[in-house]
């Protein structure tokens, strides 16, 4: 980092100022403490719940559900998307079904999923997988379809078939869109995970938030929010790095 660069100074002081005003107002009755507990109280709650393991366990549940749901949803989505992008016949058959299910808010399916899979872990994983499936499918299909005609012609001219066609043309040609799809899938899966945990779970970050609300322990609610926000930030950061590493031919990633 360039030490002479001072452009970070102003925003840092600005936000520290905001926090100080918040802290001061909370202690002097300027704002309702129940809704906006002082930052120091939130940090204390966060530290306490991290130390006694509550937040760590909740994070563990959420991550496990998120990970499993993503695997079960995004991988089939990727595969079907690639096949639909590649084969016109499969696309013609599958596209109406996809078009009908994709815009449906997946949460609307929750009661049905609960009826079919029960209140346990299965229904949660199914909801997360459903949410991750469609963005992955749509993006990998468009990824294959936007490979330009000249690229296909070159591949055909050199008789590229099967594995070589997949590895040298289709996968790398659609990779930027596939990775954008992964990002969409991860974000929507996180959203669904937390929501489903609020409604049907005893453990997990969503359940923690819900319990904190019901018992009016708002500082615990904020502490869980900090974890969820960090989770989102970290996964997005990792995906950005992976994109830069895996798509070295896109010049805008070359600066890092």
């Amino acid at each position, binding site marked *: 980092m360039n030490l002479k660069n001072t452009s970070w100074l102003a925003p840092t002081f600005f936000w520290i100022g905001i926090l100080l005003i918040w802290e001061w107002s909370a202690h002097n009755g300027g704002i309702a403490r129940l809704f906006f507990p002082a930052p120091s109280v939130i940090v204390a709650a966060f530290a306490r719940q991290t130390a006694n393991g509550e937040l760590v366990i909740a994070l563990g549940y959420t991550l496990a559900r998120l990970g499993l749901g993503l695997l079960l949803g995004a991988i089939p989505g990727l595969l079907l998307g690639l096949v639909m992008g590649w084969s016109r016949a499969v696309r013609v058959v599958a596209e109406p079904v996809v078009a009908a299910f994709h815009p449906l808010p997946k949460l609307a399916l929750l009661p049905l999923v609960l009826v079919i899979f029960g209140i346990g872990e299965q229904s949660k994983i199914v909801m997360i997988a459903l949410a991750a499936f469609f963005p992955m499918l749509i993006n990998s299909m468009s990824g294959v379809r936007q490979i330009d005609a*000249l690229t296909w012609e*070159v591949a055909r*001219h*050199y*008789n590229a078939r099967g594995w*070589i066609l997949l590895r040298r043309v289709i996968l*790398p*040609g659609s990779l930027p869109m596939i990775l954008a799809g992964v990002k969409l899938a991860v974000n929507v899966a996180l959203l669904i995970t937390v929501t489903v945990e609020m409604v049907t779970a005893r453990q997990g970050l969503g359940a923690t938030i819900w319990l904190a609300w019901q018992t009016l322990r708002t500082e615990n609610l904020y502490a869980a929010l900090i974890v969820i926000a960090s989770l989102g930030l970290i996964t997005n950061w990792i995906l950005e790095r992976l994109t830069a590493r895996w798509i070295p*031919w896109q*010049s805008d990633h070359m600066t890092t």
Partner: protein
Amino acid sequence: MTAQFQVTNLNKNFSSPRGDVIALEGVSFVVSQDEFVCIVGPSGCGKSTLLRLIAGLTEPTGGIVNFSGWLSTPRRAMVFQDTGLFAWLNILENVAFGLETQGIAQNERHQRASELIARMGLSDFARHYPYELSGGMRQRVAIARALVTEPDILLMDEPFRTLDAQTRLVLQDELLRLWRERPMMVLFVTHDIEEAILLGNRVLVLSNRPGHILAEIVVPLEQPRNLTGRSHPEIEALRWQIWKMIEPTVQANLKRAPMQ
């Protein structure tokens, strides 16, 4: 009998919502082994279509594409107008692509590709991606990708069209050198009359639409040619002669809607 390549009475129609377009009509010519033939014509005359037919990338509506006198079906390799390099493969992998699809092991294909990359003066860029190269370098890579498969027939679709005049001159010289080092049949499509005369042993003049052959001209220049120090009065005369042939078409083109 020398190996040759022959098209007889070739026709190609395209269907479009506004009716059929006849791209080529009654095109016949013969090219012999190791001949460098240029096909020149105004834009939209079906030159590229003709080349794609010969490459087997599209089927003719009528007529015959015939290869006679070869031991086996001659290998054809095409150099595309906009290079068609894969953005996601580095130069070495791009050049080796045609070998990879033939199932040649990585060691051998990288070695063969490296040799050709060296001949094109691009050894320092083998691990670069296409976007890191200039237009002229990219077109060299595209030529290397075609040549590495050791084709019997090299098909070139306006390969130098997007290059600046100086770069083009250098690449034209290089192409003739490569052709002298390893003779093969070359079919070179261009809209640039001068380029056609400078490169070809023979020039086929195509008119549009429907595309048909207006004339076959034997270029009276000896090989090897020195393009950089050129001053050939006969070129000027030839250029004028060809221009007179295609000028009416170009004039007509300006007065009608484009095909697409």
